[in-house]
């Protein structure tokens, strides 16, 4: 008798996924043992897989993946790129003056950390698993979307995850420290963490102690400065977000102008890395002047307050407002609108309202959504770790460049148009980068659309 209630389709998946990187032949009894099924069921499945070409038979009861399994390599990694019927350049004069040519391709900015692997075989044990998530906070729409994405992935993998316990630290490192202890004491198999403060040594020390005790820890979105306790870190390229958005703004302004910078949360690693990358990029344009840098806590109120404060001190609005996210960007745009001022070019995506506002009021904008879908990716990675796979030490969820039509620059081309990206049927606080979780969630409050 079989020792589980799995379906045969599930068993087939387990058989095919059980081969190693070199497709080393496996013995029948070894496969059956891993599967936990009776001999008759096991032999029946192996025979059927062999007949259909999924498995090849080797001598003396050995099996390896067959021709049909090879066909599985064909897999799109991103949504298909949009069609480009003709070259669209926002300002052809600018492109010409910059000397942009067909041969001036962008340099590949390679982060070697992306191909560093870690063998998680020491964490392998049979499921189903108990996972704990120590979340920095749910203080803004993006964080709530990331959590929604994480819960979506848990729902998909409900057979493998017996419980997912989520605790919200409310951006307080002391609270997070207590919650980590609480999660660890509850007997979780793996800890997911989004750290409240990158420099908090007490948190880092506690994570280090738990890692030393054998608890696998995966960070998502925010990690501690000391990453030695982590198996892996799921993130997106903050450097790319900062650099590309700054490059677009500088090129859009023809290489000269006054810029105000609105960063997110002081002390949060994504805000720090985006700001550093943007400053380094602006520094390449001698006639770009950074007039001020403000922190906004990634909230619309923070963005509006920062802009109001600066406008009270200066006589002229800026030529551009660099925002590391639309979370505060919407506050800035709203403030200019309320005061009846000409809207300067803005950067920052994430929030549906940012796209709705900028498109409705024809604000030049560039956005790179920080993917909230990393929540789901973190759960997938957690399952890979507990399955003992070789996993990347750093996982970057791809970030797409979103521009309104007609606003490409010499170096910054759109992956998708803002007009296609915006969701007019969803609420203003929808985060568009949360993957399939976005449409599976309850309908947003449509009454709160941008007016």
């Amino acid at each position, binding site marked *: 008798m079989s020792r589980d209630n799995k*379906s*045969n*389709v*599930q*068993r*087939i*998946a387990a058989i095919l996924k059980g*081969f*190693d*990187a*070199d*497709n080393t032949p496996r013995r029948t009894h070894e496969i059956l043992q891993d599967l936990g099924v009776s001999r008759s069921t096991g032999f029946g*499945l192996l*025979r*059927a*897989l062999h*007949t*259909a070409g*999924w498995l090849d038979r080797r001598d003396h009861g050995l099996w*390896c993946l*067959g*021709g*049909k*399994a090879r*066909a*599985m*390599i*064909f*897999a*799109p*990694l*991103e*949504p*298909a*790129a949009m*069609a480009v019927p003709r070259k669209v350049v926002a300002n052809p004069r600018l492109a010409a003056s910059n000397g942009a040519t*067909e041969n001036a*391709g*962008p*340099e*590949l*900015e*390679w982060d*070697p950390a*992306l*191909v*560093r*692997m870690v063998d998680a075989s020491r964490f392998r044990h049979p499921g189903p698993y108990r996972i704990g998530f120590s979340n920095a906070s749910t203080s803004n729409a993006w964080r709530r979307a990331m959590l929604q994405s994480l819960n979506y992935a848990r729902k*998909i*993998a409900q057979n*493998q995850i017996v419980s997912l316990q989520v605790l919200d630290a409310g951006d307080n490192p002391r609270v997070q420290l207590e919650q980590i202890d609480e999660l660890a004491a509850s007997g979780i198999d793996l800890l997911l963490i989004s750290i409240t403060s990158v420099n908090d040594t007490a948190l880092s020390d506690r994570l280090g102690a738990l890692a030393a005790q054998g608890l696998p820890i995966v960070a998502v979105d925010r990690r501690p400065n000391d990453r030695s306790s982590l198996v892996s870190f799921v993130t997106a390229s903050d450097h790319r977000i900062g650099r590309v958005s700054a490059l677009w703004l500088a090129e859009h302004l023809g290489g000269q102008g006054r810029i105000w910078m609105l960063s997110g949360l002081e002390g949060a690693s994504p805000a720090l890395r985006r700001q550093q990358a943007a400053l380094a990029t602006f520094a390449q344009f001698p006639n770009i002047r950074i007039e001020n840098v403000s922190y906004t806590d990634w909230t619309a109120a923070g963005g509006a307050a920062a802009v109001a404060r600066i406008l009270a001190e200066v006589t002229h609005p800026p030529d551009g407002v660099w925002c590391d996210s639309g979370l505060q960007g919407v506050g800035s745009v709203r403030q200019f609108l309320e005061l009846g001022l000409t809207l300067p070019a803005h950067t920052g995506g994430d929030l549906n309202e940012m796209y709705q506002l900028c498109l409705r009021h024809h604000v030049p904008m560039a956005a790179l959504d920080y993917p909230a879908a990393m929540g789901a990716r973190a759960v997938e990675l957690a399952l890979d770790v507990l399955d003992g*796979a*070789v996993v*990347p030490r750093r996982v*970057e969820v*791809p970030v797409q460049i979103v521009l309104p039509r007609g606003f490409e620059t010499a170096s910054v081309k759109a*992956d998708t148009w803002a007009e296609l990206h915006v969701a007019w049927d969803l609420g203003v606080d929808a985060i568009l980068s949360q*993957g*399939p979780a976005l449409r*599976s969630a309850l309908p947003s409050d449509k009454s709160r659309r941008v007016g």
Partner: protein
Amino acid sequence: MTQDTYDRAVEIFDALLSGPTRGHHATPARLIQAAELPASTGYRHVATLEAEGLLRRDDTGVYLSGLAAMRTGLRAFAAGRVAPVAQPVVVQLRQATQHSAFLAVSQNMELWVGPHSVGRETRATSIERHYSFDAVPAFTLGTASETGLRSIRDKMMRRAGALLIPVEITADRIVHLGLMLRAPRGPRPALTRALEQAGSQIQSAIAGSL
């Protein structure tokens, strides 16, 4: 259970897994319908395959092959070591060049395309699952070369050009990183540079995993 039961399970597995390659299915119901399965059991099997990572959904809900499927496919070519680095390398290469980037495996005169990302510059050239080489290729590890490819679809042969760099060579197969090329042009120096840089990353990752 009879052997028919197991054969039927394999048929269901096959039908659901090949669904994404036969069309855009934005709901489980459509995928189940395309696989010609009864709804009563179809939902359970789709959920199983999604949970196993063999199927996944894009932002609009359309079903795609999952990352575990790609990993298993590469293992079937004894090239599983490149699987963990496939996504970051291919996506970064696409972002840097805006050309369609892919990993592929060749055996003799045949080339099987694996994980890929379509770039806007080569959007008009669809990526096929399988190609034949136009001429007997001579590859050198770590060196990019322009290669003519042929594919047959709908009883029509199509030609395409690709820039390929071998990142792992064994006696019976070669793993390549590649970029599709725009038809009237040859490879630009910037493309070759980007491909060689990305290829060297995969080579070092493979070396590090040995």
